[in-house]
């Protein structure tokens, strides 16, 4: 079963490897990201952060979607991590089993609007997130555990206020 889909530009880092793995009780982490899956240095640096006792896969978008939909992986408790909203939408579009989408961290870049101090979004990102919600997913922003969840409706409001 799929426990959570997390959107996080840094993919696996302290917050993900410690808190989110534990809180979702995941036994399998699947990073779905074309660059990470095809670049050996990125792949190795991510593997350094593998939490003990958890299976860890780093796959391309295509392979990742196959992996999470494969009947032989149905028994796994999977935490999916993608690096951007577009990849997240593609996973949601192709995996009915994803129920919750957690926006964790997207860095500031020119043209991005601050939602929290760790999440900066573009209009394109919001469009992708809206699509995920339209697929019936529960979309919320929460970078760290001791922080309130911000649901998509409110993310829109903050975006409009700050843009």
């Amino acid at each position: 079963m799929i426990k959570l889909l997390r959107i996080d530009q840094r993919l696996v880092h302290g917050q993900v490897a410690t808190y989110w793995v534990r809180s979702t009780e995941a036994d399998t982490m699947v990073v779905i990201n074309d660059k990470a899956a095809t670049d050996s240095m990125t792949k190795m640096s991510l593997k350094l952060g593998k939490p003990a006792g958890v299976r860890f896969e780093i796959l391309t978008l295509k392979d990742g979607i196959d992996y999470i939909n494969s009947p032989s992986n149905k028994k796994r408790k999977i935490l999916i991590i993608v690096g951007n909203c577009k990849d997240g939408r593609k996973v949601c579009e192709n995996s009915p089993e994803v129920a919750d989408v957690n926006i964790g961290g997207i860095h500031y870049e020119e043209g991005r609007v601050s939602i929290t101090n760790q999440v900066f979004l573009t209009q394109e990102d919001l469009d992708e997130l809206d699509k995920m919600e339209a697929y019936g997913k529960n979309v919320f922003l929460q970078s760290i555990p001791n922080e309130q969840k911000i649901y998509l409706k409110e993310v829109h409001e903050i975006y409009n206020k700050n843009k």
Partner: protein
Amino acid sequence: MKKVIILTHGRLSEGFQSAFEIICGKENGLETIVMEAKDSPTTLSKKIQEKISKFSEDDTIILLTDIPAGSTTKTAVSFLKDYKNLYIVSGINLGLLLEIMMDPMEQAEESIRRSIALSKDTIQFINDELKILALDCKEE
């Protein structure tokens, strides 16, 4: 309730708290004690006493210190006889702090032993680890 105190030489304790907050956010059950160069065993004991006395008898108190041979640990040890719910762990690293903070500590001793084992695994010679991972990648 679980209460965690970090006690170190200098402001290292506050640094650990700051690092923890980046990963998990603010946490009420986490306190710090700074041992300064001017502290004597008596003044340091007072600082520990002040923190511990705020907690109730039902609290599980975990005191994390920096090195076992230091005054930090040695001063803390004297509190063990009066506080049956006190556990002292030396050699704090961020991995240990995270494990301790995220464990509900229903079975304190067992949880602490497990947290120590996991945190030891976070001490790695990254150059060597990368060599091993590179070999794994080739085999794939």
